[in-house]
C-alpha cells in the first residue's frame, strides 16, 4: 500500500491539503499507540509501527517538493540522496544572477522592499516549476518524467534560495 492509497487519495501532485490533514488525523486516531496503552506488547509495537508509517506518509505528501519526489519514486525515478547535477546552462546562469541579487540586497538603498520583491520573484519561479511538473507528470511518458525530475531538481535550488531569502529577511527586520 503506497502513501496515496494509505490516505485514500488520487495519485496526483495536486491535492487538497486540508483533506490530507483531516485524513491523517483520522488515521492517527485509529492507530496511535495511546489507544493501545492497555494492549499486549505485540499490539503496542504494531501500533507504534503503523503510527510511524502514517506520520512518514503525511510528511511525504504534505509539502509539494516531497510529494513530487514521492510520485517520481513510485514511477521508478529515485531522487533522494542522488548526486546528479543540473546541466541546463540557462538555469544555472539564472541561479547565479539570483544569488548575486540576494547578496546585494543588504547593501541596497531600500533592503526591506527589495527582499520582499525578491521573495515574490522566487515564489513565481516555484509556482512555475510546480505547474510544469503537473503537466509533465500527467503526460507520463519516460521523457516527460525525466524532464519532471529535472524540474524537481530545479525546484530544490529555488527552495534553497527561498530559505536563504527568509533568513536574510529575519536579519533585516531585526528578529
Amino acid at each position, binding site marked *: 500500500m503506497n502513501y496515496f492509497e494509505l490516505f485514500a487519495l488520487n495519485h496526483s501532485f495536486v491535492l487538497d491539503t486540508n483533506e490530507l490533514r483531516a485524513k491523517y488525523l483520522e488515521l492517527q486516531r485509529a492507530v496511535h499507540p495511546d489507544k493501545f496503552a*492497555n*494492549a499486549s506488547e505485540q499490539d503496542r509495537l504494531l501500533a507504534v*509501527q503503523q503510527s510511524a508509517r502514517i*506520520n*512518514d506518509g503525511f510528511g511525504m505528501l504534505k509539502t509539494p517538493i516531497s510529494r513530487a519526489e514521492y510520485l517520481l519514486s513510485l514511477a521508478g525515478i529515485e531522487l533522494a540522496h542522488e548526486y546528479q547535477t543540473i546541466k541546463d546552462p540557462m538555469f544555472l546562469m539564472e541561479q547565479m544572477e539570483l544569488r548575486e541579487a540576494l547578496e546585494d540586497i543588504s547593501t541596497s538603498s531600500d533592503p526591506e522592499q527589495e527582499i520582499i520583491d525578491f521573495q515574490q520573484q522566487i515564489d513565481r519561479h516555484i509556482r512555475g516549476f510546480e505547474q510544469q511538473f503537473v503537466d509533465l507528470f500527467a503526460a507520463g511518458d519516460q521523457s516527460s518524467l525525466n524532464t519532471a525530475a529535472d524540474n524537481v531538481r530545479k525546484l530544490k535550488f529555488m527552495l534553497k534560495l527561498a530559505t536563504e531569502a527568509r533568513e536574510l529577511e529575519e536579519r533585516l527586520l531585526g528578529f
Partner: protein
Amino acid sequence: MALLQISEPGQSSAPHQHRLAAGIDLGTTNSLVASVRSGQATILLNDQGVGSIPSIVHYGEHEIKVGLEAKAHAVSDATNTVVSVKRFMGRTLEDIQASHKELPYNLSASENGLVTIETRTGVVNPIQVSSEILKPLVELAKSTLAGELDGVVITVPAYFDDAQRQGTKDAAELLGVKVFRLLNEPTAAAIAYGLDNDQEGIIAVYDLGGGTFDISILRLNKGVFEVLATGGDSALGGDDIDQVIADWIIAQSGYDGDHSPALQREIMQLACRAKESLSSQDHTELTLNLPCGNDWHGQLSRDVFDSLIQPIVKRTLMACRRAVRDADINTSDILKVVMVGGSTRVPLVRDKVGQYFEQQPLTSIDPDKVVAIGAAIQADILAGNKPDSDMLLLDVLPLSLGLETMGGLTEKVISRNTTIPVAKAQEFTTFKDGQTAMALHILQGERELVEDCRSLARFELRGIPPMAAGAAHIRVTFQVDADGLLSVSAMEKSSGVQTSIEVKPSFGLTDNEVANMIKDSMTFAKDDMQARMLAEEKVEASRVHEGLVSALKIDAHLLSSEERAPIEQAMAQLASAQAGSDLKSIKDAIALCDKVSQDFASRRMDQSIRQALSGQSVDNI
C-alpha cells in the same frame, strides 16, 4: 473501529471497571501527583493537606526521608541531602562538573561515566534518588484512590533527551509501577488548559521550571493536541537564577574563605528567598552568617536583580524564536501564551515573554499545578476510563538523532521536531571482504561535530553473513516511540538475516547495574523480586488473553477456521500457564500467542486503517 476497543462492554473481563491511574509531575524543585476523580482532575493531598512535596531526599543514619522532612537537613547535612536531582538525570560526572562549579556532594561515576552521589548509606545514582521521590507520591495515589495503580503518566521536560527520558522511566519501574506514558510537560499543560477552555488555534507554552526550560508551540483542534515545534534547554531554570544571585551575594559580601557544603546551601537558600520576595517587592533585605563570625547585611533591588537575570531570560527568548521558526508560523499567529513553572512568577520573565509574543501571557491556571493536572487527564484516558474520548496527542522529537560518520561528523537520521512515533531506515554496507560486524555510534543533538552532540549508544551489528566488500546491505531501522525513546533494529537485506545487535548505552545503565539497583531497592527483597516478576508477567498474560478474546469476538471474519484453531490452542495454553506460577511457562505461552496471532493482528490493524477513512465525508471531519 480501533483495533482493540479495550473498554467496550463484554470485551474486558470486568467491563466498566474504573481503572486507577495517576499523573505525576516529577519536578526539579517540587513534585506532585494528581488523579481524575468523579470526572475532575485534582491534585492529591497528603495527610497534612499538602499537595506538593520538595524534590529532596535525605540519606540519614537510620532512614531515607523525602520532601519537607528531607529539606530540614539541606543545610545541616548537605552532603547527604540531594536536591534538584533532576538536573543529574542521564548526565555524566563530566557534564555535571562542567556545569556546576560548586556542589555540596561527593560525586563519583558509574561504569558508563554516569554521575553518582556518595551518601552515608552508599553510592546512589539519579534514577534511585528519583525513585525515592516517586515513592511517597505513588503511595499517596494508592491510598487516596484505595487500590493498586493500573499505571501512571510521568511528565518530563519536552527538551529531555533519550538518556534523561529513559532514566525517568527506569525510576518508576524500579518501584514496580507501570508507566503508561512519558508526557512532555508543556503538552501536559496544554491539555489542562485546552480541555478546560475548549480552545482552538495555535498556542505557545512557556515553561520555566526549577531546572529546565521548554517552549512548545501547539495547534489545538477538536481534541487534537499537535505539537508543531519544541525547543528549550534541559539545564536552565530557577536554580540558575538562584546561582547568579548567590554569586552576587558572595561578591558583595567580600567573603573569600572556604565554602563548606552548609555555607553553599545556605547561600543558595538565601538567594532563592530573595528571588521569591522580589516577585512582589521592589527590594529585599539580605543577611548571611559568615563562618568568620561576622554577619553580612545587604539589599538587592529589583533593578539589580533584573540586570543579573537578563542573560537567562534572553536565552529563553532565543529558544522561543527558534521554535516559532521551526513551527513555520509568525508570532502573530499565536492565539495564547500559557505560562508554566514557578520561575514564570518572576516579573521580568512575564514582561519579556509578553513583549516577545506581543500579548499578555496567561497565568490563570496555577503554574505549579497545571502539569500534574494535564498528566492526570491523560492517565485517565490511557487507562481506558474514557472510551469516548477523542483526544489525540501528537508530540515531536525534541533533538535530532544522528550517526557518527567519517571524520568525527554526525549525519542526521531523524531531524528535530519530527512528529513521533517515527521510524527511519538507513542502509549501510561492508567495506572489507568477509566483514561480519560493524559498529554504529548514535548521537542526539543539532551540532555537526560528534563531540558537541550527546552520545546515546554504541551498537555493534554482528552476524552479518560473510560476503565481498560492498555486497552486504544492512538496513538499520531507528524507531522512536510515543515516549520519545529510541530503539534500533538491523537486518541484512540480501540474505534476510536479522542481525543481532549488542546495545552499549553510552549514558544508560548496564544490565548489571539495573539488576543491582532492583536488588538494592529496599522494597524488594529477593523473594519479592521473584513474586514481582511473576505478578508482572501475569498482568501481561491477561492483557494478551483479553486482547485476543475481544479480537476474536469482533473480527472473527478475518480468520478461516483453520487459522483460528492454533490461536485458540495457544490461548488455552496461556490460560493454564497463567493459572500456575511458573514464570517461564507464562513467558513461553505469551510468545506462542504472539507468534500465532501475528498475521491476525496485522490484518486487524489494516482493517482499522481502512475503516478509519471509509464513510468519512471530509466536510464533517
